C-alpha cells in the first residue's frame, strides 16, 4: 500500500488462466499484461472465445473453480490474486465494479431493481447520510431513469433501461475502476450509442478508470483512449485507440479494423470481415504463431516462432508479429 500513489490503477502482469476439463487443460488466457492509469479508458477487443471475458472475470477472481489463474492482478498496487477472501469481498464492487453484458440475465428477475442497486451500498456500508433510497434515486437519475423505476422489476424494463440500471449499480459504491464486459451487445444501434455516451460522460465526470471489453472495434474506438487486441488468449496489438484502428501493425488487428468504418452497419459487427476460418480451439493451438492458419501474409518462419509483443513504431505501440520485428530491425 506504500506504492499507492505511484502505482497505476490497474496493472495486469502475465495473467494466465487454464480451465481444467474432462478432456484435459485448456489455456484460455496466455500471458496477458495490461496497464490502466486512473481516469483513463482502455479497450480490449477480440472475437468471441479469445479470452477477453475470462480476463474480465479474473480481475475480481470470479472465475469458476475449474479455472487456475497465474500471474498478478494489481489493483492500486495490491495483488487481487493473493487477497484473503474477506479483503477480496471488500474490494469487489467498492474498489472495482462490473457492468455485465446482456443485462436481462445479469439482474435478478425476482427482486426490484432499486433493491439490487442498493444491495452493494448496504453491504459495503457506503450508504450516504441522506439514506439509501435517496441515493438509489440519484443514481437512477444520473443514468437517465426516473426515480420511481426503483420499484420496477427487470422484466418491466427495456434492454437499454436494464443496461442503465446495471451502470447505476456499478456506480453505487463509487469505485475507482469499472469493468464493462460487452456493455452494449444485444442492444440496437441507437440505444447502443446512448449507452456508450452515458458511460463516457459518467466515467469522465468522476475520474473513474474504465476497462471496456467488446468484440466490436467501433464501440471501443469511439470510447477508449487505448486499445488492446486479443487473439487466442494473448494480446497481439496494443496502442492508442485511433492509431490502432487507423494503422494496425498486426495482420489480425488490421483485419478487425477493416470492418470498422461502416458504423451502424450490422455487417461490421460480424468482425472481422473477410477473414477466413475460425479462431483456433484453445485446447489445440497451432504450432508457432496461433494466427498463422488464418493469416493472409504468413511466412514459413511463422510456424516455428510465436512472437511476443514488440515495440512497433512510435510511443506506446506494440504488436506481436514477426513482420513488425523485422520492420523495426530494418528501420
Amino acid at each position: 500500500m506504500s506504492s499507492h500513489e505511484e502505482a497505476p490503477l490497474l496493472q495486469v502482469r502475465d495473467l494466465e488462466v487454464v480451465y481444467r476439463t474432462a478432456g484435459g487443460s485448456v489455456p484460455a488466457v496466455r500471458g496477458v499484461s495490461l496497464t490502466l492509469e486512473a481516469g483513463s479508458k482502455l479497450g480490449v477487443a477480440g472475437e468471441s472465445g479469445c479470452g477477453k471475458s475470462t480476463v474480465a472475470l479474473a480481475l475480481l477472481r470470479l472465475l469458476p473453480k475449474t479455472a487456475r489463474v497465474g500471474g498478478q492482478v494489481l489493483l492500486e498496487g495490491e495483488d487481487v490474486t493473493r487477497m484473503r477472501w474477506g479483503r477480496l469481498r471488500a474490494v469487489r464492487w467498492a474498489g472495482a465494479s462490473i457492468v455485465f453484458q446482456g443485462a436481462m440475465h445479469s439482474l435478478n428477475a425476482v427482486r426490484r431493481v432499486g433493491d439490487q442497486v442498493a444491495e452493494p451500498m448496504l453491504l459495503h456500508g457506503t450508504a450516504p447520510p441522506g439514506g439509501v433510497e435517496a441515493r438509489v434515486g440519484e443514481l437512477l437519475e444520473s443514468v437517465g431513469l426516473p426515480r420511481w423505476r426503483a420499484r420496477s422489476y427487470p422484466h418491466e424494463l427495456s434492454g437499454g433501461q436494464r443496461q442503465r440500471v446495471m451502470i447505476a449499480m456499478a456506480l453505487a459504491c463509487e469505485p475507482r475502476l469499472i469493468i464493462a464486459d460487452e456493455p452494449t451487445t444485444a442492444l440496437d444501434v441507437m440505444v447502443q450509442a446512448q449507452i456508450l455516451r452515458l458511460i463516457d460522460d459518467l466515467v469522465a465526470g468522476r475520474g473513474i478508470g474504465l476497462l471496456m471489453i467488446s468484440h466490436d472495434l467501433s464501440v471501443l474506438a469511439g470510447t477508449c483512449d487505448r486499445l488492446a487486441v486479443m487473439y487466442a488468449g494473448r494480446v497481439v496489438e496494443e496502442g492508442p485507440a485511433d492509431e490502432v484502428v487507423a494503422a494496425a501493425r498486426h495482420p489480425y488487428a488490421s483485419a478487425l479494423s477493416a470492418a470498422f468504418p461502416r458504423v451502424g452497419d450490422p455487417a461490421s459487427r460480424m468482425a472481422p470481415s473477410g477473414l477466413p476460418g475460425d479462431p483456433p480451439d484453445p485446447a489445440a493451438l497451432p504450432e508457432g504463431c496461433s494466427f498463422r492458419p488464418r493469416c493472409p501474409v504468413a511466412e514459413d518462419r511463422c510456424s516455428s516462432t510465436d512472437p511476443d509483443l514488440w515495440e512497433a513504431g512510435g510511443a506506446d505501440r506494440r504488436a506481436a508479429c514477426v513482420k513488425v520485428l523485422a520492420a523495426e530491425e530494418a528501420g
Partner: protein
Amino acid sequence: MKKGSALTRSATSGAAPPEQGAPGPGAAPEGPGPTGPSRAVRVLRYLGGRLFTAAVSLAAVLVTSFFLFRILPGDPVRAMTEGREVTVEQMEELRRQFGLDRPLWQQFADYCLGVLRFDFGTSYQYRVPVAELIAERIGPTVLLAGTGTVVAALIGLVLGTRAAWRRGSAGDRITTAVALTLWSVPSFWLGLLLIVVLASGVGWLPGLFPTSGMATPGVEGAFDSALDVAHHMVLPVATMVAVVYAQYLLIMRSSVLDEMGADYLTTARAKGLRDALVLRRHAVPNALLPTVTLIFLNLGRVLGGVILIETVFAWPGLGSLFYSGLRVPDLPLVQALFVLFASAVIVMNLLADLVYPLLDPRVRT
C-alpha cells in the same frame, strides 16, 4: 412445470410491460405505455379463469364419484352385504332404503343436490350422516398432513439447496442416496418398523412413543393435552416426512442447479456478497418458484399417503375412516371422502395458481 408455463404465457400476453405501482405525477415511462386492459381487469380475468377451471374439475369429480361407485362391475347392495346371509327381500329393502331402486338420473340429481347442501347421505356402517363423521375426523387429518407437509418441505428445501450448492461432493451424494432410498420405502412398512422399534420397544430399548391413536384418555389441561397429542404425532409425522421429503429435495436440488450458472449470481458475487448470501438472497428465491408450485401439486399424493399412515397408526382422521369404509364397503362414506380428497387437491392447485404470482413478479400483472 405445466403451471409455470401456462402462467407465463398468460402473463406475457399483455401488450406492453405493465406499470408497477403508481408512478409519480409526470413520471413518463421510457417505453410505450400500457395499451391493454387495466391491471385490475387482468387480475380479475386471471382469477376468473382459474376459478372456472377449478369449478369444472370439481363438477367432474362429482360425476366421477357417483358413477365410479355405481357403474363399475359390482352391486353396492351385494357389496354391502358381502359375506353375510341375506334374502332377496332384505336386499330389496336395502335398495329402497338407500334409494337405489330409483332411476339412475334421479339418484344422480339427488346426490348432486345433497352434496351442495353438504349432505352426503347416511353411512351404512355407522348409521349417522356422513357429513357428521367427516366434521369429526377432519381436524386430526389436517393436523397430521399439515405438520408433515411443512416439516417435509422445510427439510427438502434446505437439504436440496445444500446438495445443489455442494454438487458432486460426498455430502450431496449421501443426501441424494438417502432420499432416494427412503422414497422407495413403502410408507406403511416404515411406519410398522417405527412402531416395533420405538413404540413397542425392542430388547433393552423401552417404548418411547405411543403405538397408536392421537391422545391418551384421561389427560387433562390444555398444555398437557397438547403435549400428549404432540407425543402421539411424532411417529406418524416422522413416517410421512421420511417418505415425502425426497421429492422436494430432488426438485429443489435441480432448480438450484438450474440457477447455478446464471449470470445474476456472478453479478451478486462481484458485488462482494458471501457465498451464503449469494445463495440465500439470489439463487434460492429464484429456485423456489418451481419448487413451491410442485409442493402444492404434490399435496394430492400426500393425502393419499395419509390414508396409509393413519391406518397404520390408528390415527383418528379421514384416512382411517376411509379405510374402515372400504372394508365394509360403506359406499356413501367412501364416495364422500373421495370427493373430499379430490376437491382438496383441486383447491390446492387453485391455491398454487394464486400463490405463484405472489412469488414471481414476472407473472404478477
